[in-house]
């Protein structure tokens, strides 16, 4: 059987709180991450993503205890990301109960890190996150929370990271992030032709229809969203109930 399509709430965490912005800016508070994680897992979320978006080292210190608390209280898998640039940092997070680690800017800066992590922990727990923005006819990789245009072609980059050992891709369309205009379906259709690892689509989810489009028009196995869940615009049970009519959803 194909796996059940995954609904994945994402928690952007800064200084111990869940926050969310639009187009990677204009941050607002969305509550206590551990409470949110518990709530989402009870509601039937299939996985969680926790991203440390701390700006300072001081704030970064608040992330590890949150990872431990989530691992103690939540009985579904979760990925952590943000500021992971070494095997040691990844090890600490995995030993604190994270199931997968996600790297983004540090993979662009040092692609060999992907292989290094995959060799130590196995590809299955190495997620490469890619932030993309449409530029003319192509898609370009951005880093540093979307601020830096790397000039790298996103379709080439995702093939490269998979060949280096990425076991999963978390691809965020920045044109969609927080705007609720729908997932970047065209990109995911192309991306799926090029690699054979699971892909999580992110950026742009605003309605249940957006998830229906994602799961019927592309073979993507995971749909990620943040603000619509945090601010109660769509509840996970309602979303899963609707989706179960058209695709394979775990209830």
């Amino acid at each position, binding site marked *: *059987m*194909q*796996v*059940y399509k*995954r609904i994945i709430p994402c928690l952007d965490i800064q200084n111990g709180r869940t926050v969310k912005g639009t187009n990677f800016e204009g941050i607002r508070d969305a509550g206590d991450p551990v409470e949110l994680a518990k709530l989402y*897992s009870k509601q039937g979320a*299939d*996985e969680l993503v926790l991203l440390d978006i701390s700006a300072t080292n001081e704030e970064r210190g608040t992330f590890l205890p949150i990872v*431990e608390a989530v*691992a*103690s*209280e939540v*009985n*579904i*898998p979760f990925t952590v990301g943000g500021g992971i640039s070494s095997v040691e940092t990844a090890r600490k997070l*995995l*030993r*604190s*109960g994270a*199931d*997968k680690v996600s790297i983004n800017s540090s993979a662009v800066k040092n692609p060999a890190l992907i292989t290094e992590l995959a*060799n*130590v*922990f*196995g*590809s*299955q*727990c190495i997620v490469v996150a890619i932030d993309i923005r449409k530029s003319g006819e192509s898609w370009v990789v951005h880093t540093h929370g979307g601020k830096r245009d790397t000039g790298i072609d996103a379709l080439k980059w995702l093939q490269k990271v998979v060949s280096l050992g990425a*076991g*999963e891709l978390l691809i965020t369309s920045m044109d969609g992030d927080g705007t609720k205009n729908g997932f970047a379906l065209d990109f995911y259709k192309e991306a*799926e*032709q090029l690699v*054979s*690892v*699971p*892909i999580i689509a992110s950026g742009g989810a605003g309605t249940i229809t957006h998830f229906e489009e994602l799961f019927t028009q592309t*073979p993507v*196995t*995971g749909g990620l969203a943040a603000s619509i869940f945090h601010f109660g615009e769509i509840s996970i049970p309602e979303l899963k109930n609707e989706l179960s009519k058209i695709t394979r959803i*775990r209830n």
Partner: protein
Amino acid sequence: MKIAVIDYGAGNLFSVQQALKRLGKEVILTRDEAEIRSATHVIFPGVGHAKSAMKQLKDHGLDKVIPTLAQPVLGICLGMQLMCGWNEEGKLDGLGIFQVRIESIQFQFTNLPIRQFGKWQTGSFEGKSREMRSNYPVPHMGWNDVQIDGKAETFYFVHSYAAEICEDTWGIASYPVPFSAALKKDNFYGVQFHPEKSGSAGEQLLNQFLAL
């Protein structure tokens, strides 16, 4: 009851420990032979690469200890795989408790003829290679159904290698080829999925093991 979780440096000990804590059970994390032997239940977890995990087992002499345990033993994910025979990922022999090979699930999607768990099969995926690859990405990652003890349960999987169906098969999942999602032989149990991350179905399975 004394539950020992084997701590050999590989994997998700914290998650396993926390899952058991949620069930109201205290566990000890140990690599000490006497401690392991005196436990009523032993859990052998593992995440990572087979080669480095096997090396760590051998470094601590645990490769000799685990196959001789007499109490209920539960291998999880890589732990289960290491309890099997030939391991393709690490190109090495596992502990040989379950007489079954661990092979990559990737090869199913290469061009025909397709070798499926040691058997050559022709035809069934002809011309569908790309579609199959899209529909069945590897690693097999996410929630999937397992036929176990006459029931269908849904568990969380993350793996790129799998055990074929064999006489020790206890639970079956398909992706799309059927494989051993769970193995059972005498006092030894192994699960390819992660009960510690599989919601209430996982909790039930852990409780069932602890009731042995």
